């Protein structure tokens, strides 16, 4: 705890929104980074700077501004490549969000490698963004979706997962880090997929800013995340895909930028990564994401991880001491996210109460309705940490939680 005290003190000054007062009097305690992370000043400044001094469309002209924009856009791609340790920058596709990345994979992977009756494995704790794109395939083309069970501790039941695999299984799409439990996927899952010749997509929305990501070590075929959850702007997402797969799969959308040659009766497609980037991309946002990655690297991913580990452990222990709170999942495999309910108080009440205390937590189903059903609840409250949170904030939260219970249950 001591070592990161200094870490967060400096960090907090970098995030201007953290000095906001809620309802004019309460210090903001932002515990909703899993929904979206706040932005450091450099990202905000660089976005302005980009529009003020370098902005133009990319890859479309030879004038100075076009060059300046393109350089920054492609530089961001390299930063992402290094950030997740991809082999080549051709493996980094910019999309508008993780959601779009998953839709892209679902559609184009199906087109190339699947047909009716083939099987996909998901888990019961996937975000709707990693469910619906696959449901589309089921409903349109008759592919079969199977769901891996979730254990009491909030992890994929690896044995059950393995038992679902058949010769017809083509791909598994699973969350790398659960946005409800904060649990990280068991590494065995990737090896099982590999052994059985099943492609694997990891949804890295919650892991990208909170774990060290190495797509080669993870042995995944696809990895997706969103810029806005990694301290960058919204409107930019990333798809990592193995180069041979991206080469074999067909393009997703058609438009400018993704073509080789167009005549009135045919078209050839651009090489990677442009092949999957139809239309004018999110240029400034990609640059902003690159800056956010620089920022995280400057702080040090290891430092961020250590700090968030301390926070999570501390919060988990403190909340566990409250006998009126139920935490979902257990404490061992938990990264920066804690979902809970107060007995007999709906998460909306908890969230409204905490809001008035200046504390932002998420209430609801977290876009995981199948998981809520599995848990037998309608909704939960969730606190989630970013690098800027502090132990003191956890204490404020714990006190507020006690007051909340006293307010509603007299």
């Amino acid at each position, binding site marked *: 705890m001591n070592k990161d005290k200094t870490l967060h003190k400096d960090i907090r000054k970098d995030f201007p929104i953290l000095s906001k007062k809620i*309802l004019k009097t309460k210090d903001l305690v932002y515990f909703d980074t899993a929904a979206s992370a706040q932005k450091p000043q450099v990202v905000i400044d660089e976005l302005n700077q980009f529009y003020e001094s370098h902005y133009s469309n990319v890859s479309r002209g030879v004038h100075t501004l076009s060059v300046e924009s393109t350089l920054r856009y492609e530089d961001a791609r390299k930063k992402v490549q290094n950030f997740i340790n991809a082999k080549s920058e051709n493996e980094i596709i910019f999309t508008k969000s993780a959601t779009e990345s998953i839709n892209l994979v679902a559609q184009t992977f199906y087109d190339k490698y699947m047909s009716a009756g083939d099987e996909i494995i998901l888990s019961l704790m996937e975000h709707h963004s990693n469910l619906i794109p696959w449901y589309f395939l089921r409903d349109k083309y008759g592919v079969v979706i199977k769901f891996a069970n979730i254990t009491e501790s909030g992890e994929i039941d690896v044995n059950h997962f393995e038992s679902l695999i058949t010769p017809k299984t083509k791909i598994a799409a699973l969350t790398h880090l659960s946005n409800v439990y904060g649990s990280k996927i068991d590494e065995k899952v990737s090896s099982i997929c590999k052994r059985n010749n099943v492609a694997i997509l990891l949804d890295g929305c919650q892991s990208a800013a909170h774990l060290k990501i190495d797509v080669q070590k993870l042995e995944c075929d696809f990895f997706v995340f969103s810029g806005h959850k990694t301290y960058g702007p919204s409107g930019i997402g990333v798809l990592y895909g193995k180069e041979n797969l991206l080469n074999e799969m067909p393009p997703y959308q058609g438009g400018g930028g993704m073509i080789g040659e167009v005549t009135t009766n045919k078209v050839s497609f651009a090489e990677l990564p442009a092949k999957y980037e139809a239309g004018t991309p999110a240029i400034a946002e990609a640059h902003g994401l690159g800056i956010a990655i620089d920022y995280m690297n400057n702080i040090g991913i290891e430092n961020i991880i250590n700090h968030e580990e301390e926070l999570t452990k501390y919060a988990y222990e403190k909340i566990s001491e409250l006998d009126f709170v139920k935490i979902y999942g257990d404490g061992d495999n938990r990264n920066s996210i804690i979902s809970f309910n107060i007995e007999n108080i*709906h*998460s*909306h*009440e908890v969230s*409204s*109460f905490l*809001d*008035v*205390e200046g504390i932002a937590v998420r*209430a*609801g*189903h977290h876009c995981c*309705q199948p998981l*809520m059903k599995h848990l037998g609840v*309608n*909704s939960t409250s969730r606190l989630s940490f970013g690098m800027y949170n502090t132990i003191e904030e956890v204490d404020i939260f714990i006190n507020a939680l006690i007051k909340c219970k006293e*307010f*509603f249950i007299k």
Partner: protein
Amino acid sequence: MNELLKELYQEIILDHGKEPRNFGECEIHNKSAHGHNPLCGDKVSLTLFVDDDDIIKDIKFSGEGCAISVASASLMTEKLKGKKLSFAEDMFKDFTDLVKGSEESLSIIDEDDSLYALKGVKDFPMRVKCATLAWHTFKNALKE
């Protein structure tokens, strides 16, 4: 304790939230609808019996939700039972104005009205949908 919270969670709201009135399903009904707030997962099912003179003879609800949505549904059923549909429609408009903070445009609801207890919702814009879920479900039931 914070004033906004006191406004939001008046005794009557907490009471109806915990012990909703008219909970269940009407034995005989000729109108019904399910309501769902996709943002948070709250659900309400409404059944009604409306007679030939357009009087709401019976109205019941069931479902799961937060104190605001359950209390609002409960208060709504109390309010509408025995009333004419035309009155209910006017009430719908008044109630949505109330929780959105347009108090000046109210025509029926006044300070003595039990529904007035939900006025505090206006300071929690994200909760307006909780308060209006039952009322929108009621509207949908009439469309059948």
